[in-house]
């Protein structure tokens, strides 16, 4: 049985890590981009960002004043038992979000869309989002918080099979060019692309592709992996860098996730996980041990399964 106190204290620590400590994979990706960036202004911006990550760590203050929208991803292994059940779990995550907003502090961004009611704690109707996933083996739960920034940089479009790869490419470029100007997407970013599913699934997949996969990770389908590489290069060849200045760093990495869709359609969504790619993760084991990490490892073989019944692959562990 995993105690609810452990869940809440772990969640508060995760809020702190996400807001302050840039994940190593993104940092390495940005450093690599800064090395090859030769646009004067773009290069200045990238170096300022690297300095900013250091300042955040040294001062233990949030790396970005815009907290974005803190959200939670909860992965439960099949045998996991939570004290108080899922309702207690959701309350603990909502409380951790509110407490961390006050204590770190974070910007209280969440308001009612019409009445602009502000509880000053990033909690409200349907906020923070708490999404669940499951894994076949184990008694642990994984908590991941993502502080997703950006009112800009995301788009959705219903494409069709006849649009093909060239149509996908064009919408990818459209999204980057549209939101890259003036740097509204806060690039260079991890670009997540959702393909297929239904409209909502497509958005969820694209957002998760951006936020829950680390820089350098590749889709297990070799042809999709090749597309990820190609789109990364394509995005960086637009001629645009940080803040929309002349440069070559738009995309730190590109991740694509797919879902089976209606036979007549080919839904596509594009998401940008910004210069402050804030995510932090921890596994709470059944015996109470807590192990922190920055790779959510969300997209396991189980999450991408195609068949009716789950069959563990023989060449690797079934669960993450």
């Amino acid at each position, binding site marked *: 049985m995993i105690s609810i106190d452990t869940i809440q204290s772990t969640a508060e620590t995760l809020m702190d890590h996400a807001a302050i400590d840039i994940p190593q994979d993104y940092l390495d990706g940005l450093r690599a981009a800064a090395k090859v960036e030769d646009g*004067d202004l773009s290069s200045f911006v990238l170096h300022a*960002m690297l300095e900013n990550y250091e300042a955040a760590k040294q001062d233990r203050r949030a790396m970005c004043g815009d907290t974005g929208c803190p959200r939670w991803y909860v992965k439960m292994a099949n045998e996991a038992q939570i004290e108080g059940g899922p309702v207690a779990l959701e309350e603990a995550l909502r409380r951790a979000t509110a407490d961390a907003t006050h204590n*770190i502090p974070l910007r209280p961004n969440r308001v009612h869309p019409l009445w602009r009611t502000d509880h000053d704690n990033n909690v409200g109707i349907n906020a923070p989002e708490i999404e669940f996933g499951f894994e076949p083996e184990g008694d642990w739960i994984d908590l991941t918080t993502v502080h997703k920034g950006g009112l800009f940089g995301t788009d959705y479009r219903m494409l069709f099979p006849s649009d093909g790869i060239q149509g996908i490419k064009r919408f990818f470029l459209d999204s980057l060019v549209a939101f890259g100007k003036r740097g509204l997407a806060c690039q260079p970013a991890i670009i997540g692309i959702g393909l297929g599913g239904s409209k909502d699934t497509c958005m969820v997949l694209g957002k998760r592709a951006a936020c829950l996969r680390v820089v350098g990770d590749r889709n297990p389908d070799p042809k999709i992996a090749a597309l990820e590489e190609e789109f990364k290069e394509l995005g960086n060849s637009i001629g645009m860098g940080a803040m929309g200045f002349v440069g070559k760093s738009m995309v730190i990495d590109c991740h694509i996730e797919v879902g089976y869709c209606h036979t007549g359609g080919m839904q596509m969504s594009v998401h940008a996980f910004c210069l402050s790619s804030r995510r932090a993760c921890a596994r709470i084991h059944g015996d109470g041990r807590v192990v922190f990490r920055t790779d959510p490892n969300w997209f396991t073989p189980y999450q991408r399964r195609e068949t009716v019944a789950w069959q563990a692959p023989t060449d690797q562990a079934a669960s993450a």
Partner: protein
Amino acid sequence: MASTDGPSRIRLSTNPTPEALAALKLGDVVYLDGVLYTGREGVYMRAIEERVPLPLDLPRESAANFHCSPAATQRDDGSFNMGAVTATASFRFSKWINDWFEISGARIIIGKGGMSPEDYKTKFVPHGAIYLTTVGYGTGALLGRGIKQVKGLYWREELGLAQAMWVIEAENMGPFLVASDMYGNCLFERENAKVAAGLAEVYKGTKPAVLKRFGETDDRTDELI
């Protein structure tokens, strides 16, 4: 290749002389000293549309308006805890900015991503104002370091923490980049034009989507197929 110690750093007062503003060029790196205040849609609507008198004496106290909501909180004892500071996108405030210049006498607008070239020419230049953009845009921790103290918080109850008017004393706060100068030149327009030159080549081989969307045609009577 430029780096943070590459371009020259200019220290600028938040109550600048016209000469100091006139000396700034597009892309200059600026650090601010003095008092500045946050103000965005909440403040603009209250001051301009609801005509509520300003809670402080502007521009005497400050001529620098920051489009920002800080990551900050007020402790139980009334003191402030301000962590990171990051701008919010300024183009959304276009409809209020001219009236705001009239009311506030602001001469430095600080924000994210600048405003339109037309806004600079028709609203900024007549008021002798320039635009500074934050960098990145996520240098919240660096900007947070430039805050010497929070001098006041106004309209907190009416507007909430994020939209309230925070009055901040800054010391060597930056970096910012000059995105519009005293003559209304626009840094982002200049960069957009350079990027535009290569776009046709990047799009080569792609084709328009089978199903179009409004916006891809300006005629709302058009079919989208």
